């Protein structure tokens, strides 16, 4: 067989599978700690130990009968977000600027789109793995109202992940150096993590702050995940959440393709 151009973007991205598999085999031990152990610490500290002091009133906890039930879906969605932030900031800059790995890839028959899709595929694999483990660990604590709810809550994490992955990828792809990442984490990820309804109902905030929280992507992810785990799905609200996340992921994709093309092709 001789070398050839891929017939479509997905087939092209699939050619990167062996590359990402080798990268993962080399790095999984390091990421395992942060992916599996840290969320567990949060669940124990916040959900179980701190949650002991919180009254399990469904009226105040969006339908949850315990603080652990309330916080578990919030932590799951936040976990998706954090995994994505870690995977599409410094690693993307490394492949564009430090190691220039992408330039090697695009000297082959692969194109910028395929390189991005391949990388995002790997990010989604990481989201799936960490969230899958998280769901399995949480299940014995009785935080899922139904089995289907748990399965759907897990699947929704790919959407939550993509909604963050494509725009942040686009940001990283065009940055000249890594210094803005500190701001991205401190003023982007951490406030989202703390104030998007993962730890307390968004209505506890001042009305205008609550309104602000409701336009952030993590709140849509948290609320959608929580509806599924608590079995309190409201059709139209859920649809708004899904639409919001899909639109963000799609717009982010086009932005990412544009920024990386501009950076690399010139």
């Amino acid at each position, binding site marked *: 067989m001789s070398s050839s151009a891929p017939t479509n973007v997905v087939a092209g991205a699939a050619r990167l599978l062996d590359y990402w598999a080798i990268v993962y085999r080399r790095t999984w031990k390091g990421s395992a700690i942060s992916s599996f152990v840290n969320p567990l610490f949060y669940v124990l500290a916040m959900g179980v130990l701190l949650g002991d002091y919180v009254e399990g009133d469904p009226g105040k906890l969006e339908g949850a009968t315990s603080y652990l039930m309330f916080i578990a879906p919030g932590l799951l969605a936040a976990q998706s977000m954090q995994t994505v932030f870690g995977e599409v900031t410094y690693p993307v800059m490394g492949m564009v600027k430090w190691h220039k790995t992408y330039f*090697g890839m695009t000297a082959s028959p692969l194109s910028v789109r395929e390189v991005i899709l391949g990388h995002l595929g790997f990010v989604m694999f990481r989201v799936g793995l960490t969230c899958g483990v998280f769901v399995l660990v949480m299940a014995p604590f009785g935080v899922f109202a139904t089995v289907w709810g748990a399965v759907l809550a897990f699947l929704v994490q790919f959407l939550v992940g993509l909604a963050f992955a494509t725009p942040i990828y686009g940001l990283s792809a065009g940055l000249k150096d890594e210094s803005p990442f500190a701001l991205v984490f401190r003023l982007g990820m951490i406030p989202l993590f703390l104030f998007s309804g993962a730890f307390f109902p968004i209505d506890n905030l001042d009305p205008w702050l609550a309104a602000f929280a409701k336009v952030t992507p993590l709140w849509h992810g948290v609320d959608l995940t929580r509806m599924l785990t608590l079995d309190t799905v409201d059709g139209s609200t859920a649809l708004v959440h899904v639409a919001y996340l899909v639109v963000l992921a799609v717009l982010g994709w086009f932005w990412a393709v544009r920024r990386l093309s501009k950076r690399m092709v010139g």
Partner: protein
Amino acid sequence: MAETDSMILAQGLRKSFGEFEAVKGIDVDVRRGEAFGFLGPNGAGKSSTMRMVAAVSPVSGGTLRILGMDPATDGPQIRARIGVCPQEDTLDLELTVRDNLFVYGRYFGLPRKEVRERVDELLEFVQLTEKAGSMVEDLSGGMKRRLTIARSLINRPEVLLLDEPTTGLDPQARHVVWDRLFRLKQQGVTLVLTTHYMDEAEQLCDRLVVMDNGRIVAEGSPLTLIAEHSTREVAELRFGVAPEGQSHEAIAAKVEDLADRIEVLPDRLLLYTSDGEETLAKVHERGLEPVASLIRRSTLEDVFLRLTGRTLVD
């Protein structure tokens, strides 16, 4: 697809970045099996040309055909059949030598088994078999360069593009790279390289173009370029610290008629002539005694400096 013997055909090829025009309309025709060189100082437009030929950088004007295909529409098809050895190594430093080659072969859609066999052959070819399991970051500069060349050969390319293949290598490493490139040429691979080492161009290229400021200023084989733009020999005369009234310019005026062309440098005079010994004898006859003299053959470097000037380009 029309299969011709023209591997790369450029007509009026241009590349601009905003206001700046890096390549200002060049015509090039690289034939199958040939070793073709782009020479030029930094900023001459060599790398911009190479990136267009590698089908990664869009053409700003003129036409470009690679293997008969248009890079604007058939970029992936072109890249499947060429090999690229970029100026900067783009190896994955945290993967092993073998894995770097293996994953690269997979980008070309080659089956795993075939890639594994090919990797073993290539490691042998660039003498890195013993380093197969080493991390790339532990390799020397010369080894990384050889690995990059091996990687560019993974798809058995018909054309191999090499952007400054030996820049930064020590003499031993350069000779190993030259030897491997020469073998590839013998196997019928078309080589296209950029360099600013004149000895490299003379060693490897059948034909070359000299680029300056985005344009081609000369074209031909190393020998014809020397014949056209220089003389057979050069007499280099050093006069040491000039006594009063004996500046280099003044000396040059006295021997002007002895050479086809005279170049006055701060430390020496260059007399371009067909017979250096004879010219030197005539210089002595006129009572001029250089403290040191050297008669040598003209090289491509003389041609290069004549065409592109001695001014430093940063």
